[in-house]
């Protein structure tokens, strides 16, 4: 059994989990490697780091987004097994939804829209089907192409993504997945399959596969100081507490709040990166980044324009009141030294 070439790294924010991938990839140039992740932001980060900023990757490495991987390397090569025809599947329909009344027995309408683009929610299911109907050709092709597949931000995977992951783990390909269940701010698809394992449920899913995959927990954060770690940990009291390895003292360290009227002065003094929920948020005219987009980044200080539930959490430390706690977790843990909330 190929049980021990798979590894899952479950890690806290700032534990250098992406760096772990970079280090492993660079260490052995004889292995043909695929690195994939869901968000473009993270993909750019990985390309940047692997190419040392040049954009030119080492020859043994391929980096592609999760959907590119699913479409180009899983679904499209063996589409004939699902669709009955070759060369039909076009691009990706990221926003469209299939009609709920189309049964799976009509695969062309079920998986593809009118211009033959694949519905996002169906791509991984399609890939899984193609592999099943072709008696394993999808996985066989991948195992000829890659010795090792790294998947970053595994908590974004959902539905049939997990079924595919299961197949990959059972294949000769070594699979390493890294992620933080607390940072499940995005999800690749909204399929009903494996709904219970969505987001932070990934830990439970992996927990059922200990024979297939070695699980490593990383509780050290090299980014955030202990104040920030502890505040963020309160959002997920069920998971292991994070230990900070950042002991730097700057004179303004930890989690704070300020009034809207003090924002200008504060920004001038500390020059934080401003984080907001989305562009509708009032950020007092400051340039800001969406919390979801900030995933994977590191900043010295952040200034957060919180949503109402986030304010409740800040005041009560009760995670039930926090709303989308993943986004709040991401926002707070971007900061090395200070995370400050703007209260009305």
């Amino acid at each position: 059994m190929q049980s021990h070439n798979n590894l899952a790294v479950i890690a806290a924010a700032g534990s250098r989990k992406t760096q772990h991938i970079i280090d492993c990839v660079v260490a052995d140039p004889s292995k043909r490697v695929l690195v994939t992740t869901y968000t473009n932001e993270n993909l750019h980060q990985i390309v940047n780091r692997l190419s040392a900023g040049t954009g030119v990757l080492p020859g043994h490495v391929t980096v592609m987004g999760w959907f590119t991987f699913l479409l180009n390397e899983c679904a499209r090569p063996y589409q004939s097994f699902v669709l009955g025809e070759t060369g039909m599947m076009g691009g990706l329909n990221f926003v469209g939804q299939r009609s709920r009344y189309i049964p799976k027995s009509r695969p062309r309408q079920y998986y593809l829209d009118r211009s033959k683009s694949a519905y996002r929610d169906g791509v991984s299911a399609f890939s899984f089907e193609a592999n099943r109907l072709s008696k394993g050709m999808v996985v066989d092709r991948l195992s000829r192409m890659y010795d090792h597949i790294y998947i970053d931000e595994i908590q974004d995977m959902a539905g049939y993504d997990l079924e595919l992951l299961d197949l990959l783990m059972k294949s000769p390909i070594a699979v390493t997945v890294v992620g933080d269940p607390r940072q499940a701010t995005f999800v690749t698809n909204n399929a009903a399959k494996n709904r219970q394992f969505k987001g932070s449920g990934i830990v439970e899913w992996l927990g059922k596969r200990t024979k297939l995959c070695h699980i490593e927990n990383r509780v050290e954060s090299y980014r955030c100081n202990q104040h920030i770690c502890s505040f963020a940990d309160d959002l997920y009291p069920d998971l292991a507490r994070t230990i900070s390895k950042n002991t730097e003292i700057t004179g303004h360290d930890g989690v704070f709040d300020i009034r809207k009227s003090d924002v200008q002065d504060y920004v001038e003094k500390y020059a934080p990166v401003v984080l907001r929920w989305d562009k509708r948020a009032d950020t007092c005219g400051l340039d800001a980044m969406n919390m979801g987009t900030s995933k994977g980044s590191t900043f010295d200080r952040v200034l957060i324009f919180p949503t109402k539930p986030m304010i409740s959490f800040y005041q009560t430390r009760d995670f039930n009141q926090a709303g989308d706690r993943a986004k709040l977790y991401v926002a707070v843990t971007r900061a090395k030294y200070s995370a400050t909330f703007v209260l009305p």
Partner: protein
Amino acid sequence: MLSKIVIQNYRTFRRFKLDFDPKMNILVGDNDAGKSTILEAISLALTGRLRGRLLAQDLSPYLFHKDAAAEYIAALQEGREARPPEIIIDLFLDSKTAPAELMGTNNLLKANEPGVRIRVALNPDYEPEYKEFIKDPTQVRLIPTEYYKVDWLAFSGNGITFRSIPATASLIDASNIHLQSGVDYYLNGIINSHLAADERVKLTRAYRSLRENFAADDSIVKINEKLRGAPSDVSDRELTLGIDVSQKSSWESSIVPHLDELPFQYVGKGEQSTLKILLALNKKVEDAHIVLVEEPENHLSFSNLGKLVKKISDKCDGKQVFITTHSSYVLNKLGLEKLVLLSETEGFRLDSLPADTQDYFRKLSGYDTLRLVLARRSILVEGPSDELIVQRAYKDVHGCLPIEDGVDVISVRGLAFRRFLDIASLTGNVVAVVRDNDGTEAAEVQRKYAAHTAFPNISVHVGQDKDYKTLEPQLLKANGLAVMNAILGENFASEADLLEHMEDRKTTCALTIFSSDQTITMPEYIRDAVA
């Protein structure tokens, strides 16, 4: 290495499949059988280009198979639903060496193999315009290729670039010499790809400095000084002469290869094509190298062809070579077993010929094996006199000479019948053997060919009665002394004397019989053979 090709609706091929030999493929067929089309298709699938230009820029309705086009247009005009035809060229690569990235089932065979494909199909972006266009079917006379697009894909279904193909191809069309302002771009292209990257840079740099030196020459400096002082009627700026040193005028446009001090285009055409072929064969590349040679026998004398063929067979090691030819010599030398005979739907090979037969033809490479391979029907005879008599017999029955019907009468020496029948048993061409009984009962002689005559396309015709051993006694027997004397314009008293005369002058007598205007009774076995 390329393992096979499948073509749909491209030029002469409606639906075509051919497996390749990993080393040498000799494509043979009648004119218009599609030999060149196959080379073109291979090169197109490997480079995305047709004669050096992107296919998308050169797309024309005439690239489509004419029946496919006709059916489509007929269907439109009869108001039926018609799918616009697609051109597909699927080139399969060897699954052991080709990268798995190129794998998938997006090919006409739906086989899980690595490969690349060219697909020319209706562009979905133009679907509304196309629908508008076909609303009036009477104006559709050709396939509307302006609404088409060209995809260059791997069998994975994903687009590819030149770099992702693990093979390079050189197409050598020796019959065409492409000259543009005195420079054979095509040849320079071959030379260019033959040079290492740093050599190419050095050449470009040397060429540039040559042009720069031109401006520094004393006489040019003086001319430029004079020009500077010229009255500025045209412009207020300074006017001087210089050579264009920009990128667009690269060395390819003005450097000409020389052979023994002679500029390349003044060298004989035969030498030119030989050089091109050898340059391509010499190319050292890491990837699999595909060499496509069109009719190497062009412009070459027999002895020079011999030298070239020798070099081709020596140098093709580690390369996959595709050659089209009309020359039996090329074919026999390079190996009959490498022959691919083209039909409309598939290529047919002779690699299952017995080893000794392959060897036989390679040694006696003057033999016209191609005639047998290409002729729909042939009659094999023992010598020149038999050949003439059989032709006459054919003309008596059919009213024209056999060659006018596409029937080839081939004179075969000694035991070679069996070698030729080995080929015929594979090709399925109709072959009749006409031979003497040489003093053995006809049935006895025929028994020796039992293995071959088991094929429905092969028949062996032997003169009856072992007392009439050869053609001449058989002819005399069939016509009698008086008639034979009259035909030959002789007056022999006995059959024995006439026979002696005939056997002494076999060919002369045969020629007289061939051109005689008298009625001749042909021996039964010859009549059977020409029927």
